[in-house]
């Protein structure tokens, strides 16, 4: 029998803010184990708070499995900078209170409806029967924020690897959008040039485009993409080695060393992101076998997805969309989407009740250029993106 033990330890200190006051401080210390075994070529998987139980159950379930794997990886991790900041280990309640004061003092005319400030330290270790024994310690800080103003509201998020979050700037931006939202108007239905700001880019692309680059989806007939196919002029790179990247890591959740993978090169499909199993099937292992959580087996998932858009554009005359509602309802196979704008503005006025719709592959072809600074929102590293002639229904 071959085996793999994945262990994750998590320590988190967080504060929840409700109606402008800190309501709760929460700490958690958790430890989980996930075992995979290969018994007669069949893969069994189980997770538990006990390593022994995980290993026993993985063997038990392997008997009905038809999931095939020949072996587990043994690789030397890649050196990646900016994953761990010791200062996050030292975050305490007083530090959180100071950050809260910064948040509250940054909002002048509106109200913080709710916010969560969170600081996490995570240790992952993976061992397998082929001799792999790798460890990584990482840190992550985040603030989720909703600001309300006279019936308007705005959501914003800021994240980082260190404890230094850009709280003031995020809060001011949320307030500006909440104020605009409170005075929002309808716009006429029609075709508009649209700028998706980084949060909206992530929301749309994560659900409608990224799944088409999954090696598992490609090999199971759930993607329209094939190597060499051309979709617009966009360059997309999956890069878990990005210094300070939110999804950066030295190795993936199977122990495969991290590396940079070009997904789209000026519109030409070059590669798909893969885990150990589907990488072998498609002939290219990219080190993208990630687990949604300890209880889930690894599967191909994007890390940091970098949008490389060389042409600069601007906001002039465009419908500027900061965030969307319902992005998860997009069709991950066909790429069709129809989404409600949550925070949007047109010629300085807030917009309400507007829906954009189209197909992600068609949208990419209409990419005009980038707007503003590059930032990372969850997996996506991009500036704002301007697209020509997007259909808007109001």
């Amino acid at each position, binding site marked *: 029998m071959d085996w793999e033990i994945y262990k994750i330890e998590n320590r988190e200190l967080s504060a929840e803010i409700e109606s402008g006051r800190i309501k709760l401080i929460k700490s958690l210390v*958790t430890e989980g184990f996930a075992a995979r075994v290969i018994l007669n070529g069949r893969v069994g998987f189980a997770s538990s708070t006990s390593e022994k139980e*995980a290993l026993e159950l993985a063997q038990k379930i392997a008997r009905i499995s038809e999931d095939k794997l020949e072996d587990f990886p043994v690789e030397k991790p890649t050196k990646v900078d900016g994953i761990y900041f010791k200062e996050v280990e030292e975050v305490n309640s007083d530090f959180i209170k100071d950050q809260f004061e910064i948040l509250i003092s940054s909002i002048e005319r509106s109200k913080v409806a709710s916010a969560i400030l969170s600081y996490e330290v995570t240790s992952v270790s993976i061992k397998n029967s082929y001799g792999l024994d790798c460890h990584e310690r990482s840190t992550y800080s985040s603030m989720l924020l909703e600001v309300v103003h006279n019936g308007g509201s705005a959501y914003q998020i800021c994240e980082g690897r260190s404890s230094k979050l850009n709280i003031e700037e995020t809060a001011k931006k949320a307030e500006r959008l909440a104020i605009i939202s409170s005075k929002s108007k309808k716009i006429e239905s029609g075709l508009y040039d649209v700028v998706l700001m980084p949060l909206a880019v992530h929301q749309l692309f994560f659900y409608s485009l990224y799944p088409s680059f999954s090696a598992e989806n490609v090999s199971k007939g759930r993607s329209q993409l094939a190597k060499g196919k051309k979709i617009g002029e966009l360059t997309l790179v999956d890069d878990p080695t990005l210094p300070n990247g939110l999804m950066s890591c030295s190795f993936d959740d199977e122990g495969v060393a991290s590396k940079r993978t070009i997904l789209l090169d000026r519109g030409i499909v070059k590669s798909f992101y893969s885990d150990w199993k589907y990488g072998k099937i498609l002939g290219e292992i990219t080190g993208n076998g990630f687990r949604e959580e300890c209880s889930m087996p690894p599967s191909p998932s994007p890390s940091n997805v970098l949008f490389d858009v060389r042409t600069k554009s601007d906001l002039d005359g465009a419908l500027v969309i900061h965030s969307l509602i319902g992005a998860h309802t997009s069709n991950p196979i066909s790429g069709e989407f129809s989404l409600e704008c949550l925070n949007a503005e047109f010629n300085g006025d807030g917009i309400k009740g507007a829906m954009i719709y189209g197909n992600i592959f068609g949208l990419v072809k209409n990419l005009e250029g980038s707007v503003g600074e590059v930032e990372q929102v969850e997996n996506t590293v991009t500036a704002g993106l301007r697209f020509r002639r997007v259909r808007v229904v109001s």
Partner: protein
Amino acid sequence: MEFFDIRKIQTRTLSIQIENGAIEKPRYECSSIKSFRVLKNGFWGLFQGNVGEKEGLEMAKRNAIFRSDSDVIELRSEGSYVMKVKENPLDVPIEEKASLIRDLEDVIKDVCVSTKVTYFDNVREFHYKDSFGSDVNYTVYRVGISVIGVGKGRTLQFYSQRLMRAGGFEVLRDATKVAEEVKKILPKLVDAKSPPSGKINVIMDQRLAGVFVHEAFGHAVEADHVIQGSSVLSDRIGEAVASKEVTIVDDPSIHQFGFCPFDDEGVKTRERVIVDQGILKSFLHTRETAKKLKGEPGNARAQGGEFPIVRMSNTYLKPRDYKFDELLEACKSGVYLIGSRGGETNPATGFFHFNAQFGYKISNGEISEMIRDVSLSGNTLDVLREIKIGEDLKFDPGFCGKSSQHVPVSDGAPHVLCRAIVGGA
């Protein structure tokens, strides 16, 4: 007042899926969680970790270090519940479960380029104690299957159906019907046309109307949103917020997917009428929001050991008199939208958005061609002002996410006719 509570939650989940003819990623998940809360000087401290009660409470108390205005309803609750099931899923051999999904895949495979059928069962053992002397425990089973087919015609499309409920393995004895539905719809969906767009008449089927009630209305009556000032229904108790046809209820005590005999603050659950004939009657509450807004607790839920927050359970729109044919006739021209790929709402503004799985155009009161990739958006209160409600209530299960916590729920409704913005690619 100083208050504390302790939750111990043990879960065991089995999940098996078959994809394109092979059983892949079968998995067991066992978890054991202890969560401790202390309320001191109006401020909450929470600690989650695998430690003894004394140490856990001490750790939680260390987090309760500031001052605020939180308080809870004083309520002592006692009780024990073990769900009675005909076929305990833990006693059914794993081979039989694998055989079930293999049979379901056989039903759909001829119309698919790709398949995915998933089985799961889950047992949740919950134990709650608090400083008022409450002592509650329960054991609840949930089982389910989902059937997803990907088909290819003029477009690549997927269609999914599921059956999930609180109960034993007997819940799944009718599972073949679910696969038959996928087999019937998918071959037509791949050649369906794009939908019309604009503000038009819409008949929603029970699943989509259920999602509407949950997403577009239910979240706005969660009292934490009201307290945060992020609900369009703040300060509107006793007011008409919908047509007189509309009665909306949340009821954790019925054996649908959102069933729980006690909430995650140990409070025995019961039916809560939210809207009665168009009048907003009550919000949904935790112990804390109930104290603040003078309501009744019983709607606190948490994912694992997280802080319990106000959540829906089994939320439904009560049926009225319209037969489906009468709704079609009243609609005249518009769309009939079926199923849901999920949705989202902003309770602060009342704007909602969700996607149907497919639909049909309606012309001259009759159903005509099939449409795909269609979504629906609008403002909740506008829609509820002019709505015609059918007679055929059905529930649809799912998982609801809020504040990064996911809990099982079900949404129910009959067919309804309304006016909303429809769009699609």
